């Protein structure tokens, strides 16, 4: 049974610090071109297939704005 | 109203004597009593004293200007209090330590309390000897109430000694 990994980004909680992008060991994330309501460039998933669900992003996000979800298919 | 001041040198048990007297009058004789201690003076000159004020009714006088009974255990104390001593009705001195009261016009109750106490066992009981004498002089202070108080106030091994000191002091002035 394979697992599908989904990364949920709470755009409105994100303050655009970029820590998750930097500390993702697999370069899954990148800065968005869009802005949220606080004028922050939130992260977006650009290489979802590379995610190994290590959850470093969750650990380092100061704002609880990113979650890695593993959904069983 | 009756006002008693017990004064001496720090360490002579003046506060203890005041407490015993106050307790005896308050609890055994059911009178209104206020007892206060002074220790600020001890810093300056070493004088320590205890004031006991007694009344049958509600007691609101908390200050002794001139005591009815002045008990003194130390010469320096008497010298310092001379203006008070001159006006007191009853001056009771421990002649072991207080030897010069020549200017005093009234009757001086002379009790060699220190020597008497030493004979019983310890000169530390001079304060209790003087309390006994006080009971002998005053009609209002009952020897039995002091004795009862001493029996609860002191650790058991010192009770007999202090009761004896009390009685000796009493007998000395009654004789």
């Amino acid at each position, binding site marked *: 049974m394979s697992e599908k990994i989904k990364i949920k980004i709470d755009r409105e909680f994100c303050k655009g610090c970029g820590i998750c992008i930097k500390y993702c060991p697999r370069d899954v994330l990148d800065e968005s071109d869009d802005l949220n309501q606080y004028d922050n460039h939130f992260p977006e998933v650009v290489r979802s297939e590379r995610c190994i669900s290590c959850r470093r992003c969750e650990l380092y996000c100061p704002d609880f704005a990113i979650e890695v979800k593993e959904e069983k298919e | 109203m009756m006002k008693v001041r017990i004064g001496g040198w720090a360490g002579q048990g003046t506060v203890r004597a005041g407490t015993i007297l106050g307790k005896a009058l308050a609890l055994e004789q059911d009178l209104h009593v206020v007892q206060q201690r002074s220790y600020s003076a001890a810093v300056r000159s070493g004088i320590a004293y205890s004031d006991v004020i007694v009344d049958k009714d509600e007691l609101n006088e908390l*200050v002794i200007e001139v005591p009815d009974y002045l008990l003194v255990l130390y010469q320096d104390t008497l010298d310092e209090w001379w203006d008070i001593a001159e006006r007191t009705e009853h001056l009771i001195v421990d002649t072991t330590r207080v030897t010069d009261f020549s200017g005093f016009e009234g009757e001086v109750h002379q009790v060699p309390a220190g020597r008497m106490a030493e004979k019983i066992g310890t000169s530390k009981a001079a304060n209790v000897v003087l309390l006994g004498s006080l009971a002998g002089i005053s009609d209002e202070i009952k020897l039995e109430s002091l004795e009862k108080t001493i029996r609860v106030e002191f650790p058991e091994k010192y009770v007999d000694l202090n009761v004896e000191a009390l009685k000796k002091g009493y007998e000395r002035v009654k004789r």
Partner: protein
Amino acid sequence: MMNPGEYFIEGNIACAEAAMKAGVKFFGGYPITPASEIMNHLSDELPKVGGRFVQMEDEIASIASVIGSSWTGLKSMTATSGPGFSLMQENLGYAVMTETPCVIVNVQRAGPSTGQATKPGTGDVMQSRFGSQGDYEIIALSPNSAQEMFDQTVRAFNLAERYRTPVVMLADAGVGQMREKVTIPGEVEGEERKRPTSDEKEFFDTDDEDYVPPMPDFGDGYELLVTGSTHLGDGTRDTASFSAQDRLVRRLVAKIEENRTEIEDWEEHHVEGADLVVVSYGSMSRPAKGAVQKAREDGKDVGFFRPKTMWPSPEKRLKEIGKNSKVLLVELSLRGYRMEVERCVGSEDFYVHDRLNSLPTIEEVHQKIEEVLR
């Protein structure tokens, strides 16, 4: 803890015994003359009744520990004198703002500053009411005998629990260190703080008529938000909105103000229609009362009035007295209660006999009464 009965003890000891009778289970303190006997006694006795005693590093920490303890549900107290009381002011305000029941005994001594450590004074009356920052009301009591050091300590705990507020016992070195007969009863009437009854979530606001919200303990699972900053009913900090500040601070003041008839307490004799009423409090009220008795024995129409609650002040009664009689305030400081009494009675025919360092004789106050009547 002493068995019920009659004792010949110092006011400070009576205070400590009363605290245990009232159910104190935490004392945090720091030594200071002339209040130390309270903590000395409790350090020995409190553990024997299951209470926690701790000597903290200073008075700031003492009151802080007391407030922390109170939030776990324990009746908590500290005792100090002027210099320590000054240090406690910020956290006293914190206790007001967070509605934390606790008792702070201030055995007042002569100030300002270090002043005279062993000498009585009543110069902290205004500080007890206005010493912390911001708008607030407080309860402060004034005992005038060793027995009242007992009785009013019990009342201080009851008021603190009843109104969820710090209560200050404004004793002085006179009553704290005098030995008198004290009757210790078997049981005392005890008040317990209002607890949450259902699934309430608001512990910092209420529509109850007494203005007192329920108070849970830490550890009850309410995920409490307790803060000295302005907060909403659920404790959430709100440091910006008009409505939060207005609603909270008005209620905190109303909690004391609107309940003042229940809180106020005083002793009075022959006040009605007297030519002169002597107002006094604390140890100084004893010779003042004695002087009134003496004046009455001389046939003078002199009354006696003694506030037992300094705050809230017995304002209404003082106003009535001021309307009909001359008033002589007798106090052991120059500025202690003067402004408040003067405000209440009005300035006409208001006289003061103030003294520093030590109590006067009855005769001294009596002479002042004669002078005022002349």
